[in-house]
């Protein structure tokens, strides 16, 4: 029955858990995309090493500009750097979110037991 009262603090904890859960799923999607980008850049890097052309068609905006192989190598290295850092930040945030969710689960289950369900269906 309705033996346990829900306080404003409880509600805020529940709200926070909801927000964290949403963010967790967003992060999973973002991490997936960042990993794909990383892989693509890695593939591009490897192709560059294999090619013996001096001029490469590199996409800038909506066109393929003719760019020297060296410059393309630099650009790709830069892009890899950016994506790696982004990926690292995302993974860190994901760990943090999971930890916070774990804490809140402890608190909420302690108070509400079976009256609350915090698992993914």
């Amino acid at each position, binding site marked *: *029955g309705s033996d346990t009262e829900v306080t*404003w603090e409880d509600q*805020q904890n529940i709200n926070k858990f*909801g927000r964290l859960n949403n963010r967790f799923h967003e992060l999973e999607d973002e991490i997936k995309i960042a990993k794909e980008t990383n892989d693509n850049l890695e593939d591009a890097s490897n192709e560059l090493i294999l090619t013996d052309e001096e001029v490469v068609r590199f996409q800038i905006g909506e066109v393929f500009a003719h760019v020297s192989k060296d410059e393309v190598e630099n650009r790709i290295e830069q892009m890899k750097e950016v994506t790696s850092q982004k990926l690292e930040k995302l993974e860190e945030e994901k760990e943090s979110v999971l930890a916070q969710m774990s804490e809140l689960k402890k608190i909420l289950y302690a108070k509400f037991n079976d009256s609350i369900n915090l698992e993914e269906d």
Partner: protein
Amino acid sequence: MASSSSTSGSASGSAVTERRGIPGAQFVEDVQTYLTQSGLDVGSALAFLQERLQQYKVVEMKLLAQQRDLQAKIPDIEKCLDVVATLQAKKGTGEELIADFEVSEGIYSRARIEETNSVCLWLGANVMLEYTLEEATGLLQKNLDNARASLEVLIADLQFLRDQVTITQVTIARVYNWDVHQRRIQQAVATTAQE
């Protein structure tokens, strides 16, 4: 940081009444008091709360659509800035920029872009204006900053909205449980009275 749910830990359970047109969900301290004060019976209260939930869902759809638009727009602006920066870098080198571009789907042609001081920017509504490379960079950067700022506000709106949805869902559950509890008590009383 957006001022969504109040951070006051007080027992009064204050909350923001609304945010940019989104009504705040009233937190219910005690179900009995809530029903007495609002003068609603359980059925009407539940109906009201369910309708609120639907309204929130409608707004959520709208905001999510706006968020998708902004999230698509931002990389586009970044691409434009990249192009302008490339043209800028070519200035003074005496080199032309050779680019393969799409004439029609699947058909490409080659263009020779000579050193230039200006580009044309599509402003929308069938209007295209010529800008110097510096002006173009400035305008594009401003658009990018605005888009990012709008996205932040939008995300905060969505968080606020989702909090109100959660509060409403919890309130619905509590009202319903309270009703079940009341009926059980009445049942018990009726049974005892019969004995």
